[in-house]
């Protein structure tokens, strides 16, 4: 037995040790009980019986309320269930609205992108047209000079032919 320095037994330590041993033995005993087929079978039957009794009692209460022309629990539950279902439908509508909103946002983004793309394409086209115009002008200028020389040569040929 644990002893204190003054020679008296340390009752607290003793009681603690005793408690630990008792707890461990009780735990082992409970383990056997709680997993024994007899206990589980009894508990199952007990739970089933209680549930049946509870259901029957509730049914009885509802019938009694019905006879007294009062709303029973079943009536209130039915009403609450309708509210719940309506709430569910509202939530589904909210889902759809959000989905539509997402699509709208997506479309808006696409629209903005396509506008930017269109503007860029227009700009590019304009630049390309400008480049083409510049090239054409250059070509025309070159051709104009060439055409002038060509016309002179043709005139000379014509004159020579007329003279002959």
């Amino acid at each position: 037995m644990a002893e204190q320095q003054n020679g008296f037994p340390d009752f607290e330590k003793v009681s603690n040790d005793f408690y630990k041993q008792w707890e461990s033995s009780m735990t082992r005993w409970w383990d056997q009980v709680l997993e024994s087929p007899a206990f589980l079978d009894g508990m199952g039957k007990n739970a089933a019986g209680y549930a049946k009794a509870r259901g029957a009692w509730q049914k009885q209460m509802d019938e009694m309320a019905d006879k007294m022309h009062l709303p029973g629990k079943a009536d209130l539950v039915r009403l609450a269930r309708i509210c719940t279902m309506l709430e569910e439908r509202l939530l589904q509508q909210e889902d759809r609205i959000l989905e539509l909103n997402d699509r709208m946002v997506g479309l808006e983004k696409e629209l903005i992108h396509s506008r930017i793309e269109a503007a860029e394409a227009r700009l590019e086209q304009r630049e390309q047209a400008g480049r083409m115009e510049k090239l054409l002008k250059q070509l025309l200028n070159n051709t104009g000079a060439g055409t002038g020389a060509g016309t002179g040569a043709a005139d000379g040929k014509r004159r020579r032919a007329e003279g002959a």
Partner: protein
Amino acid sequence: MSSGQPWGHNLEKMDGIARFLAADPAATVQTGQTSHAIIHRDRKAVVRYFAPAAHSGQIHTPMFISMPLINTWTIFDLLPGRSVIEALTGAGVPVYLLDWGRPGPEDATTTLELLIDGTLRRCLDRAKRHAKALHGASEMDALGYCVGGTYLCTFMARYPDAARRMALLCTPIDFHASGRLSCWATPKNFPLQEIVAGHGNFPADMMRQSFSWLRPMGQLSKWKGLWDRFDQPGFRELWAAMEQWNSDNTDFCGAAYQEYVQRCYFDNALYRGGWKLAGREVRLSEGRAPVLVLAAADDHIVPPRAAFALKDVWGAPVQTRQLKGGHVAVCVGKELPAALLEWVRAGAQPAGQAEKQA
């Protein structure tokens, strides 16, 4: 009980504990204190947005968190200094938390399809939209805890591009490796049809009782813990907050619960395959997001083996890591925020950068 203390001190402690419990601390403790805004309502579920702290500097990729359906979300924001959300926002992570709310009797017909393809999909979508508008983020990381993780995993296998990366905390994948729970949840032992038919939803009380019965001695350990650590600074508040959270379960929508237990626990179809959701088979091999699987070493609800089984079936790289603590204690420990922040930093990409690159 520390050794060698005089009995007078113990009597004082007993008196202190009696007064503490008489004041009903679990009813008065304030949990979920981090400021946030609700950005979307989806029937009973809401998406809570926690802005990154102003002092955090760099803004990381936002994180979407799918909480379990059977408890309240406050376990991730239990108390200041014991909050996963506080740690994440403090490091510059915008957090979007899916709080599934409290189903009522009218939700008994809500199916898994409605929860996963409807609520979860929509909430993630709204979170992404919000993050894009506010932080310019085009991508999102996702974190799932327990059943919330199973749903997230199923969703990510169906919609592989929904999130950039995924982390799963104490998430069952191989349900037949879930220890005692898998021994209980068999067609022979568990009257699933009768329970759902009788109760409509799976009742929160029954859920709480079931979890208590999984480890009966855990209840006693709770009281012993209070006795042993009563004088430690901050412990009383933490104990009260845990007590509040533990007793605050929520109902599980009946139809969804039936399909979940049938498919996951009875058939183990998430792991083995063959589960059709909304007419389409759930194939975890189709998942493309890299995953970090975190499991708690002493988890009696989802043992590490059940969580790490994702490695065998997921279609992308899976990294596993074991943390100290149990299924719930891991959420209020120091290791989880550190592991998550490490994961966040490993995939660091300032919000908006991807957008700019695109």
